[in-house]
């Protein structure tokens, strides 16, 4: 990160090897985002596929207190539709930033899309996000009603 000082740009933060992600040598799509009134960062898509199963995730790396940090990871889809498993399932979720909370950080609004079907085994449903509004508490995004959070891992 460079900071403008007069007519010059001074390098204030040089943080390398922030994260390793992607597959087959290709990084997921990413885009700079504003995640608060005065908060900036990079949103990175991730996911994997194999044996007819495909998943997708998004990760936010945010700039906070002078350095970048992995803020959250959210799974956005999972399907085994191309697998040989006879018990097919497939679900998709989406999220968007909401209005800023009192701390200036935007809330997250998470929703599951209609028409989803889920794995029968509870252990395979762990990645399904809980719908609702999440608020950043300075460390993690926490659901406003339920005791769940979107941790960095």
């Amino acid at each position, binding site marked *: *990160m460079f900071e403008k000082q007069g007519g010059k740009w001074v390098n204030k933060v040089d943080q390398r090897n922030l994260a390793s992600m992607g597959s087959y040598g290709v990084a997921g799509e990413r885009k*700079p985002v504003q995640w608060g009134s005065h908060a900036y960062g990079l949103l990175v898509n991730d996911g994997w596929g194999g044996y007819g199963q495909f998943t997708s995730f998004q990760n936010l790396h945010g700039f906070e207190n002078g350095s970048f940090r992995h803020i959250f990871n959210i799974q956005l889809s999972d399907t085994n539709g191309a697998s040989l498993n006879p018990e097919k399932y497939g679900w998709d979720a989406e999220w968007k930033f909401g209005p800023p909370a009192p701390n200036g950080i935007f809330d997250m609004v998470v929703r599951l899309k209609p028409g989803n079907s889920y794995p029968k085994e509870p252990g395979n449903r762990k990645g399904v996000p809980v719908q609702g509004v999440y608020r950043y508490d300075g460390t993690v995004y926490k659901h406003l009603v339920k005791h769940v959070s979107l941790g960095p891992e």
Partner: protein
Amino acid sequence: MDRGGYRMALCGVDDFELLCASAETPAIVGMIDAQKAVAFLNGQPSSGKAAVPVEEYATQHALLDGKEVFFLYTTANPPSNN
């Protein structure tokens, strides 16, 4: 007299820290963009850091605490992953 001594001789006690610190700080002069930022980071051998790996990049201009800032994000496949 070396450059440091020369500057010290020019700067008064009160303004020494501000003037001399800014004179010592390497920086990009004028407009900034990704190419300039990468070249700058790779041109600082004293940092002891390896070259910035760049295959793709994204940039972001922002205001933080009333200061104009520029973020440079780079991605690259590490050589060990070929």
